[in-house]
C-alpha cells in the first residue's frame, strides 16, 4: 500500500481526491477555500484595528487555519514517509523552454535556482519571491478567492464569476510566463 502511495499520483486519482476534500468539508458544514486564511492571519496580527476589512471575529475561521496546519503536515509526510525516489517527469518541451530562460531542470519539485538559499540571499531573489507572493495575496483577495475557492468550489457550483476569475488566472499566468519571466531570468 505504501509503495503505491509513494509513486507520483496520476492526474485522475489526484483530481478525484481533491473533489473528495471538497465534499468532506461540505459535510463538515464548511466551504473549501485556502486564501481566506491569509486574511485571517492579517486579522490575528492586528490589522483589524487599522483596516475595517480585517475587523471580523477570526475564530469563525479557526477550522480553516487548522486545515492549513494539516496541509503543512501533509507536505512533511509527502517528503518523508511517502517520498518518491523518481525524478519529476516534466515534459521535454518545458525543460527546453526553461533552459532558454537559463533555468536548469533538476528533477525536483521546485528549482533550486529560485528557491535555494543562493538566490534568496540576493536582493533580486528576495524581491522576486516577496513580490510574487504579494501578487498572489492581493489578487486572491481582490478576486474573492484562489484556485480552491474559484477553480474548484466555484466552478463546481457553476458560478460564472468563478469562470471569469479562472480566465483572469490564465491571462495573468500567460503574461508572466511569456512576457515577464524572460525579463526577470
Amino acid at each position, binding site marked *: 500500500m505504501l509503495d503505491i*502511495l509513494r509513486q507520483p*499520483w496520476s*492526474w485522475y*486519482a489526484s*483530481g478525484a481526491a*481533491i*473533489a473528495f*476534500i471538497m465534499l468532506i468539508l*461540505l459535510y463538515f*458544514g464548511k*466551504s473549501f477555500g*485556502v*486564501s481566506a486564511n*491569509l486574511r485571517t492571519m*492579517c486579522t490575528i496580527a492586528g*490589522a483589524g484595528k487599522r*483596516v475595517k476589512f480585517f475587523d471580523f471575529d477570526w475564530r469563525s475561521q479557526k477550522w480553516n487555519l*487548522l486545515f*492549513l496546519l*494539516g*496541509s*503543512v*503536515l*501533509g507536505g*512533511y509526510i*509527502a*517528503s518523508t514517509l*511517502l517520498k518518491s525516489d523518481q525524478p519529476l517527469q*516534466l515534459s521535454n518541451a518545458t525543460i527546453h*523552454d*526553461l533552459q532558454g530562460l537559463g533555468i536548469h531542470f533538476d528533477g525536483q*519539485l*521546485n528549482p533550486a535556482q*529560485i*528557491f535555494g538559499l543562493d538566490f534568496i540571499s540576493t536582493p533580486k531573489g528576495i524581491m522576486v519571491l516577496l513580490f*510574487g507572493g*504579494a*501578487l*498572489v*495575496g*492581493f*489578487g*486572491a*483577495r*481582490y478576486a*474573492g478567492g484562489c*484556485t480552491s475557492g474559484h477553480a*474548484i*468550489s466555484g*466552478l*463546481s457550483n*457553476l458560478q460564472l*464569476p468563478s469562470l*471569469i476569475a479562472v480566465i*483572469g488566472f490564465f*491571462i*495573468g*499566468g500567460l*503574461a*508572466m510566463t511569456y512576457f515577464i519571466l524572460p525579463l526577470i531570468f
Partner: protein
Amino acid sequence: MKGLKFILSGLVFGVIMAKSEAISWYRIQEMFRFQSFHMYGIIGTAVILGVAIVYLIKKFKIRDFQGNPILFQDKDKSWKRYLIGGSIFGLGWALTGACPGPMFVNVGYGYYTMLVVIFGSLIGTYLYGLIKHKLPH
C-alpha cells in the same frame, strides 16, 4: 477534539497536493505553456466530480454531519473584480509557481524559502484591505 477532523482533512489535502506534483513550480510552468495534460487533468477531474457532488447535494437536500442543510453561496454578480483580481493572482501564480495552498504544503515539504512568498502574500492581502474601497469591483 473538534478541530482534529480539519487537521486530518488538511493533512490529506497536503499529501494530495505534493504527490500530484501540483505544488511544483515546474508543473505550473508546464501548465501555462500547455505542454502537458497533467494539471488540466487534475483540475478538470476535480471540477467534473465537484459539479456532480454539488448537483447531488442540492437535488437530494443532503445535510451536513450536524443535520444542517448544506448551503451554497452565489458569488457577487460582477466581472471587474474577478477579471482584474484574477489576472493579478495569475501573475503571481506563474512567478512563484504556488497558489496559497501549495505555498504552505511546500513549507512542510522542506522548501522553507516559500515562507518569504507567504510573507509576501500577507503583505499583498493587507494592501488589498487597505485600498479596497478605491478599486473597481
